[in-house]
């Protein structure tokens, strides 16, 4: 085990896979020479050289299109979209091409690529550089969606994503790049589609993703200490494929579900989980399902407003302690 930051875990996973497979390439804006604007890919150019680690122009469509063309013809590219907000600029390639190529070609096309991107707010970057768009990705059939909540999961899940034969959107949380934790050394893979029970409990199931996971865990401590409530915190890690079983089992046990989502309210990923639980676990519910989300407004830039909007530990504690 080594203490590694979230950002260093990104580089570590990419390096691990680039060493393993010479067909893994990496391209993006300022990713090579500068090591990425978030310094998440430092050292890769040095180790793997300019043929495998490439800086691109500001051309999101070209970046993703090229990644797709390369993936279709024998390579395993990793592309970076600097801010997940910019997916809107090249969403066509993701949704209309990458997500559908295999299906429309009746299984002929291969698309083993990873698009990693810095997602989420908390960095005071303003509405166009702070969005959490994992729910956009979840809504499109044909792409896998991964959103790790800690450095160890970054390493294991990014490695798994790179090895995965299907296209994966890998959402890193920019507010967590600096956070350190113990990360297993050497080859480390976490299979996609496995949730992590981050904390066991019996009174309520809290499903939280990415940056909301540490907040949910903190809230769970407070809830136990001050309110005597035993919270089970589940980190799905992947929205697609979704570990529905773990969530249903947990809610069957606790009878209560709360989701904590950084994305805006409407059609957030928690809405889908609430729907699944409401349909498949209805008779075990002892209280209405509750979603804690950023409200349905663009995120303000100023810190006091941004912190108010994005779900906080206090808000989680308050909502859960007042549940039926």
């Amino acid at each position, binding site marked *: 085990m080594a203490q590694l930051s979230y950002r260093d875990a990104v580089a570590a996973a990419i390096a691990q896979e680039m060493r393993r497979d010479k067909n893994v390439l990496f391209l993006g804006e300022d990713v090579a020479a500068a090591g990425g604007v978030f310094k998440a890919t430092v050292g890769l150019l040095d180790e793997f050289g300019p043929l495998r680690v490439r800086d691109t122009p500001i051309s999101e469509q070209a970046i993703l299109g090229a990644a797709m063309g390369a993936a279709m013809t024998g390579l395993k590219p990793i592309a970076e979209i600097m801010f997940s907000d910019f997916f809107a600029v090249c969403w066509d390639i993701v949704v209309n091409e990458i997500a559908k190529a295999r299906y429309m070609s009746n299984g002929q096309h291969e698309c083993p690529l990873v698009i990693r991107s810095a997602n989420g707010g908390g960095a005071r970057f303003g509405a166009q550089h702070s969005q959490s768009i994992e729910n956009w990705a979840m809504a499109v059939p044909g792409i896998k969606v991964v959103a790790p909540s800690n450095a160890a999961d970054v390493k294991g899940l990014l490695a798994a994503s790179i090895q995965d034969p299907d296209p994966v959107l890998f959402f890193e949380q920019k507010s967590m790049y600096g956070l350190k934790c113990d990360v297993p050394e050497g080859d480390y893979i976490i299979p996609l589609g496995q949730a992590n029970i981050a904390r066991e409990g019996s009174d309520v199931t809290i499903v939280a993703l990415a940056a909301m996971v540490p907040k949910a865990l903190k809230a769970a401590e407070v809830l136990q200490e001050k309110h005597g409530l035993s919270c089970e915190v589940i980190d799905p890690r992947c929205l697609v494929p979704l570990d529905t079983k773990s969530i249903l089992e947990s809610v069957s046990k606790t009878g209560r579900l709360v989701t904590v989502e950084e994305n805006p309210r409407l059609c957030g990923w928690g809405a889908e989980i609430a729907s699944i639980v409401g349909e498949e676990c209805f*008779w*075990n*519910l*002892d*209280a209405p399902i509750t979603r804690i989300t950023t409200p349905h407004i663009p995120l303000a830039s100023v810190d006091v407003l941004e912190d108010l909007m994005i779900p906080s530990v206090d808000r989680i504690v308050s909502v859960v302690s007042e549940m*039926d």
Partner: protein
Amino acid sequence: MNVLMPQLGETVSEGTIAVWHIKVGDTVAKDDPLLDVETDKAAIEVPAPKAGVISAINVAEGETVDVGVVLVVIDVEGEESAAADSETASPAAAPAQAAAPVAAPTPAATPMSSPTSAAATGSVAKSGAMLSPAVRKLVSQHNLDVSSIAGTGKKGRVTRQDVLAIIDGSTAAPAAAPAQAAVTGRSTPVPVPAPIGADARSLIPFDRIRKLTADHMVMSKATSPHVLQAVEVDYTAVDAVRKSYGPGWKADKGYSLTYLPFIAKAIVLGLREFPKINSSIVEEALQLHPLINLGIAVDLNFEGLVVPVVRDCASKSVGQIAEGIKALSIKARSKSLSPDDFAGGTYTISNSGPFGTLMTAPVINQPQVAIMSTDGIRKRPVVIESESGDSIAIRPVGILAQSFDHRAFDGAYSAAFMNRVRNILEQQDWASEL
């Protein structure tokens, strides 16, 4: 006053008007039949709870309405309208094994309780309170009366935990029961002196079960001239079989083989030979019952009594009777006794044995004509007669005492029956009866 649609079963939520016996404008006396109500489980006659004039009939024949709906309004002299009917209540289903020497209410055609009435005594969540899907599922699965479960959630909500606690037996709830016919007899209030040196906490209001039981006991004593007769039984033969088959039985079934199923079987065999004791008085006739359905009185943690019935004991072996008794006690413990479990009793056994009492004079469980109390079995010195002379031996001995209704038969008949039961207990080849 309003007469509401009664609840005819724990999980029954509606009833159908079968036939009206009165019309608007009729004058009715107390207990006059008003209408017949039906569900798929039961049919009952709803009598007038008070005398008065029928001022409104709200539901037509053939209509189905929810429990608690006002069916008919009676103009009672001196009374304002719309008081909820609280005269009747239903006994509870309960957990415990130990019996107390009481009888249970009769399944006769008497008014039902309406749990939605505001007069529900004691604890509990009213129906119409927020019942979550989890609570509904558990309540349905275990046939519980949720209106009798105390809610510890917000605003008194019954939570899943509350229901689970009942099911696990960790909470002894004074739950409401399957719709049993309730009481028509009532006790006449007697002036009571103020308690001496007492404070408010020394006054314990009667809950539903207590009221029902009290009324039934008075009614039973008022109806049947009770005579007590007892025999002393040597349980050696039973004991021998209990000792040899007991461990195997316990290992196999998970519970012990007690004296009770043997006593029950002996009584059954006796009743076959003395059928007048397995009967009911109807008008001025004795209605013999073809089946012997034994009611086994079950105490509810000293809070009340129920008498679930093991049916058709004549066709059952000791083992089967034991199983039947065990099944009922499990159901009682999980509050899942249903109206069917209480229906059709023809003779009742009240078992004080575990408490080691000497003898008990039980109150007859109407409309039966006799009830047997089984009391403590202890080792006593007894005189054994033989051809070579008398000797003293130590034997397990206990008293069986029957209270019987002297209207139905006389002391000699009862005594002969008691003698027969004693002989069966002492001489039967019990090993082959298992």
